[in-house]
């Protein structure tokens, strides 16, 4: 190969690089390792984490069983190692699965159209907010404090750069639901959208219908957010919303210390041309056979450059495929039964704990501990990871712990959690005397 290029060494390939830009030394990295050494390295790192601990963490990332079929399907090289399906003739497999994904998202959310997925829930929220700003020509967003705190932080980052204003509205201290009465006073003619999450960060199911009515009365859109997709198996779909932005981690996507996950935006039909992200459409080929292709790409950056609806050029195809396989395996009956099991487990556990809020909840809820730290430390000694203290985001809720139970939570572990809660409470009473 070198001879065909008329050069004598690989170094000659870089002759055009001026001497002063070259590194001139080897990279200070360790020598390359064998496959076995790499496996051992990561096994050792995994063992340093909380491997094998039962956990009651939720808060946007949920432990659900991953059916074996999911990894079987996504490990096929034709899915795993294929490129973005721009060349429709040799990408029909990916295109068909995305079309199925879009359909299932519509069926679950009650929306008319859904995109091919986005990075995750936290970035889908600002993308939905910018979409609402484009649709309404308004520049202000009103967000419930019961939306996931990290989603709101991401929204704040995006909004600052876009010159969008973000205001928040509170929650009912009794029910834990967003304060829809207080919302009205926050709305004005400049409000592009109200952003609500259901179930909300406290696990409480929100009144999407009333929120939509309030938003619409001032000409704003309602963006409904979800972070626990399994809840869609049992909750009434948010059909009154204009845009739905969600996180699909619950659908067979490993927690994987925070990512990669997949988000999605679904919306009413009339807003389709303002949807960010990729879309797959059905069409025919020259022989008249059904075919799929990426479509409406005039919204996208590679065509529109600075006039695009978003700068994002990828979806999360492989992760969305995990979710699609998951939804196919569980199906109509299974997703309902899975949701019912989550509901039953969480209500079994909640009955044994002091609850902070009275609103209806799906599979997580806020418990009031005497001391969140004492409880969680005692649980760690029993090799159990307790719920999430949320005071760092809600200073008015000291010692409030967000507890989640899913179909994977064992009754004996839930009983242990409840005992530890009760003991910690007893101890602190003794201490108080």
């Amino acid at each position, binding site marked *: 190969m070198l001879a065909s290029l008329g050069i004598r060494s690989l170094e000659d390939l870089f002759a*055009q*690089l001026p001497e002063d830009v070259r590194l001139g030394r080897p990279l200070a990295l360790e020598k390359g390792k064998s496959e076995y050494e790499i496996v051992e390295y990561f096994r050792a790192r995994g063992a340093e984490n*909380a491997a094998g601990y039962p956990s009651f963490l939720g808060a946007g990332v949920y432990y659900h069983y991953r059916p074996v079929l999911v990894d079987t399907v*996504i490990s096929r090289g034709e899915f795993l190692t294929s*490129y973005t399906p721009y060349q429709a003739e040799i990408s029909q497999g*990916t295109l068909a699965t995305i079309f199925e994904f879009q359909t299932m998202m519509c069926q679950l959310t009650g929306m008319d159209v859904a995109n091919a997925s986005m990075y995750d829930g936290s970035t889908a929220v600002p993308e939905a907010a910018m979409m609402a700003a484009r649709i309404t020509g308004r520049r202000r967003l009103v967000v419930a404090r019961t939306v996931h705190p990290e989603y709101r932080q991401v929204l704040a980052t995006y909004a600052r750069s876009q010159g969008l204003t973000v205001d928040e509205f509170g929650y009912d201290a009794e029910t834990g639901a967003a304060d829809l009465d207080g919302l009205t006073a926050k709305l004005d003619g400049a409000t592009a959208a109200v952003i609500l999450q259901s179930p909300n960060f406290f696990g409480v199911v929100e009144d999407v219908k009333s929120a939509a009515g309030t938003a619409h009365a001032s000409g704003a859109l309602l963006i409904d957010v979800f972070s626990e997709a399994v809840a869609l198996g049992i909750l009434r779909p948010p059909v009154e919303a204009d845009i739905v932005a969600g996180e699909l981690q619950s659908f067979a996507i490993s927690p994987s210390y925070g990512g990669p996950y997949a988000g999605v935006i679904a919306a009413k039909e009339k807003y389709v041309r303002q949807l960010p992200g990729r879309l797959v459409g059905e069409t025919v080929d020259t022989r008249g056979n059904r075919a799929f292709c990426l479509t409406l790409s005039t919204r996208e*950056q590679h065509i529109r450059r600075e006039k695009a609806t978003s700068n994002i050029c990828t979806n999360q195809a492989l992760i969305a495929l995990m979710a699609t396989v998951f939804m196919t395996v569980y199906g109509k009956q299974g997703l309902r039964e*899975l949701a019912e099991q989550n509901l039953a487990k969480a209500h079994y556990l909640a009955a044994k704990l002091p609850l902070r809020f009275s609103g209806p909840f799906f599979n997580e809820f806020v418990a009031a501990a005497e001391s969140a730290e004492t409880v969680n430390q005692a649980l760690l000694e029993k090799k159990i990871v307790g719920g999430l203290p949320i005071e760092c985001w809600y200073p008015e809720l000291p010692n409030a712990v967000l507890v989640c139970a899913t179909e994977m939570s064992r009754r004996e572990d839930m009983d242990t959690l409840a005992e530890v809660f009760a003991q910690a409470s007893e101890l602190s009473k003794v201490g108080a005397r």
Partner: protein
Amino acid sequence: MIRKVRTHVNQNEPLVFELSSPGKTGYQLPDLDVPAVDAAGALGAENVRQEIADFPEVSEVEAIRHFTRLSTWNYAIDLGMYPLGSCTMKYNPRVNELVARTEGLAWAHPYQPQQLSQGAMEVMARLEAALLEITGMEAVTLQPAAGAHGELTGILLVRALLESRGGARKRILIPDSAHGTNPATAAIAGYQIENIQSNERGMLDVENLARTVSEDVAALMITNPNTLGVFEPNIGRIAEILHARGAQLYMDGANMNALAGITRPGDNGVDVMHLNLHKTFSTPHGGGGPGGGPVAVKAHLEPFLPVPRLKRAEGQWRFDYARPRTIGRVKAFYGNFGVLLRALAYILAHGGDGLRNATMDAVLNANYIRKALEPYYDLPHDEPVMHECVFSDSRQQKRGVRTGDIAKRLIDYGFHPYTVSFPLIVHGALMIEPTETESKRELDLFIDAMISIAKEVEDDPRTVLNAPHNTRTSRVDEVAAARKPVLRWKARR
């Protein structure tokens, strides 16, 4: 003559909704070990849904056949070369898939106590250190989810820095050879875009740049090597021009696979750059994501990096949130950890020498193809290239054949098309990037295919114009798809 492929039977398959029969299931759940709960009672009847109309109802074997049949309709790296310029479609080592599924890592919750997350944090810290050594930069955030997300993060960092110095400024300069994400990103970050023309050699015109950079320019977004595959030898001078006016040099690191081990952006005046872990560091494309888009910066931009930051204290890794000048979060949690982990596995497997060898092989392969195809396709720029080369279809256009047609004909020869009509500065571009993981045998098959197509264009252009001929799906009607969008399946009732 087509040497690489011949046709074989593959299966038809309807959509999963059309396969469904009422009552069929493919799942198993354990018996409930707690009392069942009445949904209407617990949630309120008004909050409980009816059945999910038309949701799938198939058995397990139907599900696996469904997805397996669909998979056979895809081309993939595991089947052969993807000469996609700018996309770096290289082999994805399977050990990376295995280690990403290590129980203590795949099952780690982002909110589990930090003292029980030391292994995951160590993986991130080690990757950070490796990326700094490879790029010559001084700090890196792993939070952005993909390249475009990294670009946005990088430009927000520039904006925050300039605001702290008195004003965000108005304009971002972008060469006309840039990826479409660059202008889209700058616009999302609230900047006006000014395109700057490349010179006749396909490079940035330094004198023109010196005249263009004024006090309202925030940054230049440069891709190096640029999208012609040409290294900008004046990168140091470009940085000086910008810095003299208080502007920043942003580098799109999409082409880092042409530089690793040879030269470091950080040593050449770059202030901020992103990396595409799914390109240079080999995370599988998965049909379009997930990726990873770390952003590396010089020290003066470090205070603005997204929260949280990894910090070593008292012999443990910690997340530091107390960073008053941060731009905030760009994503929940800490980044696409599963992708970060694969990138580290790739770096560990290669080591410093291996990364350098990969770069050299990538450049060798691109130059080998360029040399072999030069007699058959027009080469509008004859500068030396790095990891990719760009031809134009000007000779074939005389026979009525365009780059898109040649690309489609390539499919019949068993290859994925190269990148079509990009970069925009080359009319009718054929942009070819073989990567280092292709063997000489695969490269020769590709070269043969391209030469054979060039001859077809002369002898029988209709064969090329109507391609592909051998795929199960022929050219699709994209115009109809866009005119009357059908974006979901609906039951015929």
